[in-house]
């Protein structure tokens, strides 16, 4: 790679930062439309840059030592910060930039009061995600991790007139900051052991001696930081609250891009730093267990929600669990499958959140029961929910298809059919929940739930006057574009081939270290494997998931099981128990975080 493309990794961070800083400086003098356009242009430029980078790196890596401090400058050895972008990192930045752009277009006509500060924060948020994706240095990753947090807490809480919104943003902030502090302790421990911060160098030093309790604890604490961001059980409580109450475009970015960064960090740190240091089987079992529990708990909680955004938030948790299953295999295919799954998730959950935002702005509520039948004739929004709902089940050709199929394929290759069943169940339950909402709200199908109970008090819409049909159509457009991108992602053979190379490069930890520490030496070629996508098994599993999803929706709509009191007592008790558990206040959420951290530490630092 040469020419201007070499500078792309740093530009992907710096350009949105500069845009954010300038909007913060001059935004209050700019008319709203200029701020909108400027922010959209910067986000689009980032998306373009990330796409260019993904093409330009090919089967290699773009390594950039910042500040002119290459490993040989000054003669003392590496002193600067390295940015390392492979195709996987570029793809995640691309997804983040596209979601931010979609969010900005979506909010073109609302969030008037907050104007340019909102734009500045969105761009800074994007920059932080780019920085985190390309950081080849532990402490630098921590800095971008914290910047992601700072921007996201402010964005999540900016509807200050809505009590739930500020409350959830505070929980989000406290829990994530605590997770960040634990991760920093992990970084400090690794620094104490190796005296290095560069990922490749830390890995190299760790491999020089057998792992002990210190290395295990450091990995456990880094995992806590990443899994808090990723919303894995038991660090997931903040997600349901924040994504249910944050402004819609922010929800789309949180759910589609930021959560994925946590999963990505687990995979990256394992590959570059801890692979070959900590016992492979132990970590595999740990991550697979976490993934399965997260996927199932998220899916079960999702089905039992009637607040649409909260429902989507729980489905995010469930899908993170599925991605963790892929990463947890700790092999090339599993990781690649997880990344493909995250990209597909961005193209599916993003539109669903935007669609729910349209409902909120048209009707002033996202309560499924209160919305019964109110969406009749709104074909644009209806189709987003329908396609999104089917997409969550991995309907062949839609966004999640490739990722879900690949996760299932790698799990069954690894001889874990039970976990394939977990993936199918998670897909069916989350998809069933969304399809049930779709049928109730837009078609008025099933028993009218309003006959059975009072409608809920309405929520503050994000726009003061309810938006009309034309504006709603404008707001739905980015959702449609995202769904379209998902179809391309799931079906374009060229992307599947590119994914194969990306997986091989990602899995090549040695090649990573070589590229970072000896940038002059020519990179060794990687052998890419491209697992087949359209196989009979995968199609059968997809069909099964879709059918089960439709069945879940149908049972909820018409089934005799729906009526209160008819559920078997044991199921009711479990569901009530789970609800009780998820009533966790801030102190309990912190307690769960500490318990999870302690458990990970005990398991890994034996």
């Amino acid at each position: 790679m040469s020419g201007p493309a070499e500078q792309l990794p740093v530009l992907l961070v710096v350009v949105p930062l500069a845009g954010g800083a300038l909007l913060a400086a001059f935004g209050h003098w700019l008319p709203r439309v200029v701020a909108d356009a400027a922010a959209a242009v910067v986000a689009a430029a980032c998306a373009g840059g990330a796409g260019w980078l993904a093409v330009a790196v090919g089967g290699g890596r773009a390594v950039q030592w910042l500040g002119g401090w290459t490993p040989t400058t000054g003669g003392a050895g590496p002193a600067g910060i390295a940015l390392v972008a492979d195709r996987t990192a570029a793809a995640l930045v691309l997804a983040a930039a596209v979601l931010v752009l979609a969010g900005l277009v979506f909010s073109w006509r609302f969030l008037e009061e907050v104007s340019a500060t909102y734009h500045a924060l969105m761009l800074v948020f994007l920059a932080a995600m780019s920085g985190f994706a390309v950081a080849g240095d532990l402490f630098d990753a921590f800095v971008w991790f914290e910047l992601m947090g700072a921007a996201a807490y402010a964005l999540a809480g900016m509807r200050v007139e809505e009590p739930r919104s500020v409350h959830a943003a505070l929980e989000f902030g406290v829990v994530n900051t605590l997770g960040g502090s634990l991760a920093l302790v992990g970084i400090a421990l690794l620094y104490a052991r190796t005296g290095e911060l560069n990922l490749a160098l830390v890995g190299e030093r760790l491999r020089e001696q057998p792992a002990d309790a210190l290395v295990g604890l450091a990995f456990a604490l880094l995992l806590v930081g990443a899994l808090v961001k990723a919303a894995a059980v038991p660090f997931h409580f903040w997600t349901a609250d924040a994504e249910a109450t944050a402004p819609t475009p922010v929800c789309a970015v949180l759910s589609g891009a930021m959560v994925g960064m946590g999963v990505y960090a687990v995979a990256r740190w394992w590959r570059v730093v801890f692979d070959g240091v900590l016992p492979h089987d132990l970590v595999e079992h740990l991550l697979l267990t976490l993934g399965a529990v997260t996927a199932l708990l998220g899916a079960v909680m999702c089905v039992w929600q009637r607040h649409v955004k909260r429902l989507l938030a729980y489905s995010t948790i469930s899908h993170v669990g599925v991605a963790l299953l892929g990463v947890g295999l700790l092999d090339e295919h599993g990781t690649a499958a997880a990344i493909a799954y995250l990209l597909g998730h961005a193209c599916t959950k993003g539109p669903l959140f935007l669609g729910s935002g349209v409902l909120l702005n048209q009707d002033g509520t996202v309560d499924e029961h209160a919305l019964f039948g109110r969406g009749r004739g709104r074909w644009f929004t209806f189709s987003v929910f329908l396609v999104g709902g089917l997409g969550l089940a991995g309907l062949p050709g839609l966004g999640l298809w490739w990722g879900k199929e690949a996760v299932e394929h790698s799990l069954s290759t690894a001889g874990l059919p039970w976990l394939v069943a977990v993936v199918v169940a998670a897909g069916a339950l989350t998809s069933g929940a969304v399809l049930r909402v779709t049928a109730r709200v837009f078609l008025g199908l099933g028993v009218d739930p309003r006959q059975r109970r009072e409608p809920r008090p309405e929520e503050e819409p994000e726009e003061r006057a309810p938006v009309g049909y034309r504006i709603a159509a404008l707001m739905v457009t980015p959702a449609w574009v995202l769904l379209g991108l998902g179809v391309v992602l799931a079906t374009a053979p060229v992307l599947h081939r590119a994914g194969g190379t990306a997986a091989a490069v990602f899995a090549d930890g040695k090649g990573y270290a070589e590229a970072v520490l000896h940038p002059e030496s020519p990179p060794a070629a990687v052998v890419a494997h491209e697992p087949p996508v359209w196989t009979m098994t995968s199609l059968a599993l997809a069909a099964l998931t879709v059918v089960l999803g439709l069945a879940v929706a149908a049972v909820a709509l018409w089934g005799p099981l729906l009526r209160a009191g008819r559920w078997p007592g044991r199921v009711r008790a479990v569901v009530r128990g789970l609800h009780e558990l998820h009533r966790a206040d801030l102190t309990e959420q912190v307690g769960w975080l500490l318990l999870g951290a302690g458990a990970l530490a005990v398991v890994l630092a034996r």
Partner: protein
Amino acid sequence: MTLDWLPYAVAGWVFLAGCYGLVTSRHLVHTVVCLSIVQSSTYLLLLAIGWTRGGTAPVYADIGRHRKVADPVVQAMTLTDIVVGAAVTALLLALTVQVAKRRGSVDPRELRSLEEESREERAG
């Protein structure tokens, strides 16, 4: 008797004290301050790791090139961490002000949970 484990022990103690405060908190301002205490423990740990016995500050304005010094990298990390901590604390306190205004309570245990608010009263 050497006390070279003491800095680590202090960092660990401060960390646990902060966590204790977080799980027993009855006031959101107290929660945010306890979070700052947890963050302070990371500064202590970093500085303990970076300290060199017999070393001085890594500022060569008035010392010779070959004096033994503490590790400047951890000091830089600590500085960054302090600014991050202060910035995030400001944000969290701003959110606390809004929670107090909108919810009328600052006791995390009294605040009505969000799961509760959006819960189905299915079982009746």
